[in-house]
């Protein structure tokens, strides 16, 4: 008996293509990570392993020259001669992006719910406005400065801007989650069982959409942290947003040091993704 060629080759072909594509995408990241521990990187491959100097400089643990500001390590506490210090500026800029996510959670989830659940005049418009990433960061940045000069350069301005820019991704992720579940039936079940509307929304509707909310939050955070254009225009002084921190290390440094900065950024993204996922799966647990 002969098997159809599609069956014989199909699976292998798909697997090979997938591996090739993933490999192609992962090699630069892997190489950068490896390169961040190298002392020299002038050819195709880095050399002079292994040194932690790049990481130390990027993390602000080693003395640097010129425009390389440290990351503002602050002492958290001291116990018996040992000091635990945290890179407070880094945490602060991680927090800027998280602030944007927080606003989107509060604003984006109800919008997504409204559009998915109700038919009303203008719902198509609201949907289009909230879902289309209408404004590029540069334009929003300039417009923002003109409209709200008081917010220029403030952390709050950055947070609001991030949330505005990235809201479409939150709304899209959450709305599609809402649309994939029997939203109205869930709501009616909970109501008939005696839950008020706010209680239904918070203990049934939102937790049932958790996977969409978590993925929306992860996308929002990642994109907000990497948002260069808006940050560049609005930021004035003080702690730098992550994207600017990254740019500083890429444009003013050796390639190996840039590799360390990029790798660190990558690690932060992985860490925040894992964190958001954990918070998502635990935080929504309504177990009694």
């Amino acid at each position, binding site marked *: 008996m002969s098997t159809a060629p599609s069956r014989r080759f199909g699976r292998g072909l798909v697997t090979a293509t997938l591996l090739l594509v993933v490999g192609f995408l992962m090699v630069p990241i892997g190489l950068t990570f490896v390169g961040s521990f190298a002392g020299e990187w002038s050819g195709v491959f880095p050399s002079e392993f292994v040194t932690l100097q790049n990481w130390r400089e990027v993390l602000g643990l080693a003395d640097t020259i010129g425009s390389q500001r440290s990351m503002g390590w602050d002492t958290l506490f001291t116990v018996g001669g040992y000091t635990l210090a945290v890179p407070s500026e880094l945490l602060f800029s991680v927090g800027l992006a998280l602030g944007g996510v927080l606003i989107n959670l509060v604003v984006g989830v109800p919008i997504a719910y409204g559009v998915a659940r109700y038919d009303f005049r203008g719902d198509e418009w609201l949907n289009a406005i909230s879902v289309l990433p209408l404004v590029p960061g540069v334009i929003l940045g300039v417009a923002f400065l003109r409209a709200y000069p008081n917010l220029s350069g403030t952390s709050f301005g950055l947070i609001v801007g991030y949330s505005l820019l990235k809201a479409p991704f939150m709304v899209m992720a959450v709305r599609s989650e809402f649309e994939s*579940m*029997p939203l109205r*039936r*869930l709501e*009616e*079940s*909970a*109501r*008939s*069982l*005696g*839950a*008020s509307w706010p*209680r239904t929304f918070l203990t*049934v509707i939102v*937790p*049932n959409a*958790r996977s969409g909310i978590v993925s929306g939050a992860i996308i929002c955070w990642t994109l907000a942290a990497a948002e260069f254009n808006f940050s560049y225009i609005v930021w004035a002084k003080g702690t730098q947003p992550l994207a600017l921190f990254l740019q500083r290390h890429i444009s003013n440094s050796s390639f190996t040091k840039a590799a360390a900065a990029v790798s660190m950024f990558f690690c932060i993204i992985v860490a925040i993704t894992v964190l958001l996922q954990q918070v998502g799966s635990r935080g*929504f*647990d*309504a*177990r*009694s």
Partner: protein
Amino acid sequence: MARVTLNSIQKRYGETTAVDDVSFTVDDGEIVGVLGPSGCGKTTTLRTVAGFETPTAGTVSFDDRDVTHVPPENRNVGLVFQEYALFDNMTVRENVGFGPKMRGVERSERRERATTLLEMLDIGDMADRDPTTLSGGQQQRVGLARALAIEPAILCLDEPMTGLDAKLKARLRDEVGDLLSELDVTGLYVTHDQEEAMLMCDRIAVMNDGRLEQVGTPREVYESPATEFVSEFVALDAPELPFIQW
């Protein structure tokens, strides 16, 4: 449980009339089927009883209490849907315990009540499972247990068997039918399937185009249909009904 009376219910959405002058009574402990083609207003009727629609005219009362304007969470109506609509963020037991929890029933008693109901529905060993891991038939049993847990004045079932395969449907129909009569549940059973209505319900209200065509026992509806529509709809691929004990 209670006697539920619909008195000249009318529901209009702008120009269209979804339900027009519908009156019938569901006696205490009785299951009344609302039978009709899709779009005939049967679901709107059920939603009016549950409190999700306020009728344009007419009243709904439970026993002698007028509940026309009482919000759904204060009506004590159990709902079972075709889509199950289980809460995926809770275990099976928590789903069943949700209603009692909202009513302030204590935790240990909630647990006990849920366990009893789940055992009655033959899914006692699934209490700690995530509802998404259950089969369609099992999920529908959880849905039923959840609705029964609040000891509802009336249980509203909206096409609960639609979407299940024929064999499972037959089994569930027998089991659920027995359980509902054993518990002496007052029920409103909305379906488009005449066989299901005939087997599960004490009386049947046949609806067409927002109007009530006939209310009667399955036998009356089958043997002496009041209108041409009823005779056509009930006879339409009519079951042989050898299994009905007249």
